[in-house]
């Protein structure tokens, strides 16, 4: 029966054998890759010889905007632009420049836009204080509204009839609830 099956489905069987054969090669390849860590070590380029420099570089580049992909920081972006600037920052840190010097260097070339925290100056005043202005406007509007409301309540006291009416309504309501 099985022989018959093979005869009848020769094509299917050869396909399967081919796949199995291919798998064997794959397994072999994976084994070679798994047992050759030395091969990997050569491929992976060391990111930094000095972890302290790397730490400072990342801390600094988190504060800087990648101009190419503007919603990413220089630390997080994989763009060539960010890679170049990270290299530049790393080199300047190795050359013993302070964070301020490096930031000034970049601002001189790319402008304030590269900073996530722009400096306070005449062109950025609205940016820094705009939200507080809106808060003040909102608070002012609220105060005016509340004052007017209180005045409205004071100016229009209820008449005796209205008070009585309200009382009966309230009584009815509470009676209705209790039953």
């Amino acid at each position, binding site marked *: 029966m099985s022989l018959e099956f093979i005869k009848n489905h020769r094509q299917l069987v050869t396909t399967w054998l081919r796949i199995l054969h291919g798998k064997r090669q794959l397994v072999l390849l994976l084994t070679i890759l798994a047992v050759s860590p030395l091969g990997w070590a050569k491929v992976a380029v060391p990111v930094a010889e000095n972890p302290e420099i790397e730490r400072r570089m990342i801390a600094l580049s988190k504060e800087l905007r990648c*101009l190419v992909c*503007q919603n990413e920081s220089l630390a997080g972006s994989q763009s*060539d632009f960010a890679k170049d600037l990270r290299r*530049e920052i790393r080199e300047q840190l190795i050359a013993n420049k302070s964070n301020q010097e490096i930031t000034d260097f970049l601002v*001189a*070339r*790319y*402008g304030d836009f590269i900073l996530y925290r722009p400096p306070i100056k005449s062109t950025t005043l609205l940016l820094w204080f705009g939200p507080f202005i809106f808060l003040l406007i909102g608070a002012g509007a609220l105060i005016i509204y509340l004052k007017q409301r209180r005045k409205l309540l004071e100016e229009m006291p209820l008449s005796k009839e209205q008070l009585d009416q309200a009382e009966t309504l309230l009584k009815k309501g509470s009676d209705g609830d209790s039953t």
Partner: protein
Amino acid sequence: MIRFLLPLVAFIVLVAFLLVGLNLNPRKIPSPLIGKPAPEFQLQQLYESEKTLASKDNLGKVWLLNVWASWCAACREEHPLLIQLANSGVVPIYGLNYKDKRDLALQWLDRFGDPYTVSIVDPDGRVGIEYGVYGVPETYVIDKSGIIQYKQIGPVTVDVLEKTILPLVKGLQGGI
């Protein structure tokens, strides 16, 4: 009446702000280098790598520095215009081949034409950093005393060329 009108007016103002915001180009970032001396460089030339060109060599003339690369699609867009400009002989264009491979760059110029008086190479983008390059192509107008007068980020268009760059260049060439 004012109760309904006020929120409506506030809403319209908000929409107007958002509309303006939508139409702004977020890639247009004012360069702090305008009005400042162009950063100095001395770079290998593209055709004859044993020769160099220094920014100082161009003192005394108005010139354009066009940053380009063979991998940059938008460079192809502005290229015919640069060739036209080069043929008109109004102003020399110097090409800075940015983060590119020499053979690819040469192939590219061979295929699309070479508008550059001299082509120089910046393979690792270091001079690019000095010039604040972040979006190729970029074009700088540099005056006789080596001051950057204008920076075009992105491709040069007919509009920009005729309304901004050419009048600026003519004005600068007239001056001392």
